[in-house]
Structures are given as C-alpha cells and as structure tokens.
C-alpha cells in the first residue's frame, strides 16, 4: 500500500507540473525512463486518484484524459487552513510546534532571548 501512496504523489507531481490534461499513456511514457512500471499499475493508481477526488476526467476516444481538480497551491492552502483550524480541536492530534502569539508576547520573547544571550556570553 505504501508503494501506491508514493506513486500517487509522483503522478500528481507530474500532472501539476504539466498544467494541462494527460492520459494514462502520457504518464506511463513520462515515468518509464526513470522506473520500469506497468501500464495497468498507473491506470489503477490514476483511477484511485479520480475516485478520491484528486483528479477529474473526460473521455478521449477509448482513453480517459485526466486533470487535477485543483492546483497544488490550492491544496496546500486548504491543508494549512485545516491544520490551523484544528490545532485547538480536542479530536485531532495536530501537535503544532507553536501557536500564534500577540505582538507584545513576541517582543517579550525577543527580549528574553537577548537577555539570555548576554548572560551566556559573559
């Protein structure tokens, strides 16, 4: 399963960098020089990505033409929003390194660091 997850990431990466639409054949041809990979494997993974909502597709003769549902930037922003929203949520274990601080607190923290710096240099 883990290998599939990685392949999902690789395929989405290609599709995002191309910008347009692509068939399974396009993706296989692009991946082939780097790794030996079966057409059916790519087809399965792209079908999975379509089912999970990452890709939209339309018929092109006998094949499907796939396209990312949203840009990478949109997905990134969405994930960040979810992480920020949920960091205070009881249910989700988003252990964020640090929460937001007010300007005054940031100033105080900076002053503390300065003080500690002076002490250690002395």
């Amino acid at each position, binding site marked *: 399963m883990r290998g599939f997850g990685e392949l999902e990431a690789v395929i989405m990466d290609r599709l995002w960098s191309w910008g347009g639409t692509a068939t399974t054949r396009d993706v296989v041809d692009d991946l082939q020089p780097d790794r030996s990979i079966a057409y059916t494997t790519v087809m399965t993974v792209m079908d999975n990505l379509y089912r999970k909502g*990452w890709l939209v597709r339309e018929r092109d003769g006998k094949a499907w033409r796939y396209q990312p549902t949203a840009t990478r930037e949109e997905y990134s922003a969405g994930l960040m929003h979810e992480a920020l929203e*949920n960091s205070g949520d009881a*249910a989700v274990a988003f252990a964020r390194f*640090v929460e937001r601080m007010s300007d005054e*607190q940031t100033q105080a*923290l900076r002053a503390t660091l300065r003080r500690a710096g002076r002490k250690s240099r002395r």
Partner: protein
Amino acid sequence: MMRVAICLLIAGLVVATFGPPVLAWATRSGAAPRWGVAAWAAAIGGVASAWLAVAVMVVVGVLGARGSGSHFAEWCLALLQDAARGAPVPVLAALAAAALPVVGLAVWRVVSTVGAGRIRGRRHADAARIVGRRTRDRNVVILDVTERAAYCLPGRPHTIVVTSSAVEALTGTQLAAVLAHERAHLAGHHHLLVAFSRGLARAFPRVRLFAEGAEQIARLVELCADDAAARRTGPRPVAEALLALTSAGPSGALAAGGMDALARAERLLTARPTARWRSAHLLLVATTMVLVAGPFATAALAAAGTNFCLLPTV
C-alpha cells in the same frame, strides 16, 4: 461488595476534588514534565477506573440481588412500572439502571472522539504526502504556504509537516530542534495521552480533574518535547525556533496557547537549580504513587473487611 463500591466511589471523589489543586501546584514549574504527565494521567486513570469499577459492582450486585427466575428485561420493566406507580424503588437498583447508559455513553464518547481524530489525522497526512514536497527523510514533507508552521501527524508511518516559510525562517540547527520536538511527540505517543484525556474531559465536562487534567497534559507534553529537542540541539535553538515560528497576530487578539510559548522559552533559557528540580521530581513521583495506590488500597482494605470508611455494615 457494596461497601467496596462505596469506598471506591468516595476515594475517587477525594482524588477528583483535591487532585487538581495539588497537581497543578506540583507541576506548575514545569520541572520533570514527564513525571508531571504521569501524575496527571495516574490521577485521571485512577479515578476513571475506580468509578467504572463502582458502576460494574453496582450492576453486578443488583443483578445478583434480583434473584434467579425472572428475566433481566422483565425485571427492568417491573422496576419501571413500580417507579411509574410511585411505589418505592430500591435505590441501588435505580442507580444500576442509571449507571449503565451513563457509563456506556461516556465510553462511547471517549472512543468516538479519539477515533474521529485518528481518521481525520490520517486523511490529512495522506493528502500532505501527495501535496507536499518530499525531503531526504521520507516522513518529513514540506508544504508550500506563507504561514510558518510545523506539526506532526501520528500514523503508520508518522508524518511531520513543515511549511516552506518555516524552513526559510529557521537556521539548520533551529530546524533540527523543531524536528526533534515533533519526533519526541511521535515517539512518546503524546497524541494518545492528549486525545484520551480530552475525550474524557468532553464526556464529563463537570469533573474538574478531567477538564483541568486534559489541559495540563497538553501543556506538559509540549515541555517534554521541548526538553527532548534541547537535549539534541541545546536549549537556545529551541527557544529561537519558538520565536522564529510565531506568526505575530494582531496585538490583543491572543490565541490560546500564546502565553505558553513565552513561558516555554523562558523555561528553556533559565538555568535550572538542580536541588530544587530534584525535590520537585521527588514530590511528583510521590504524588503519582499515592494517586495510583490510593483508591485501590482503599478498596483492598474494604474488601479485606476493614471498615475503613466507617460505614455501617450493609
């Protein structure tokens, strides 16, 4: 058995009442945070299991007392009819009837809270692995956004997300400190401690021990992770990273946890008088032992026949 149940109930109430102020005082300085987490978890776990045991004992006791012959459902129905007619209903029987759904609901709430969080976290991690840029460490991904943030998602495998802006804002050592902090959360299974204690707090919002315990455990695991990071890089890079990753919001609009970052940095940067820390450590160890042993020692004494709670023999 009823005497044991009542003793457990009282012991649980004592810990639930006097536990929070004592523990808050003992863990306030942030010395030995691991023992602080242990002490709170012991108090919460001890009280929760003592009360669960009471509920089970009452149910079992009443079931035993109803006599054989009649079916359990019929017996419940008869009890309800008695109550509807205004006839006196045995107190314990009523308690037992009330305890079952309450306990069931509480257990369900805790489990569903934890479960929902797990599912959401895993989905987020899967998406982050597709959207984020991969790094040399296969469990760390970089998300291209303007916010500076770092967080971890437990799972198999664990995922640590760092934003590109955070990477830009941090030096190499500071980034190592942040990663060490997140890895400490994952290695220590902190998410489970936080999720279970918060689930319990949500199921019993009125019980101060659970509500305050959940907050304190969330605070103390951050300190545990800070200490782990400080062991790796020294305390200063951890404190610097805290400053570098704070996204300064509008002044006055203070987000929850904001004060903690300042307190965390100060704690990291102030020298630790070892003697005082050692005594804090010992105090916490002792508190933990008492909290764990207390309720059960009481129950054991009661079971052995000592009329410890000075109750009339039932």
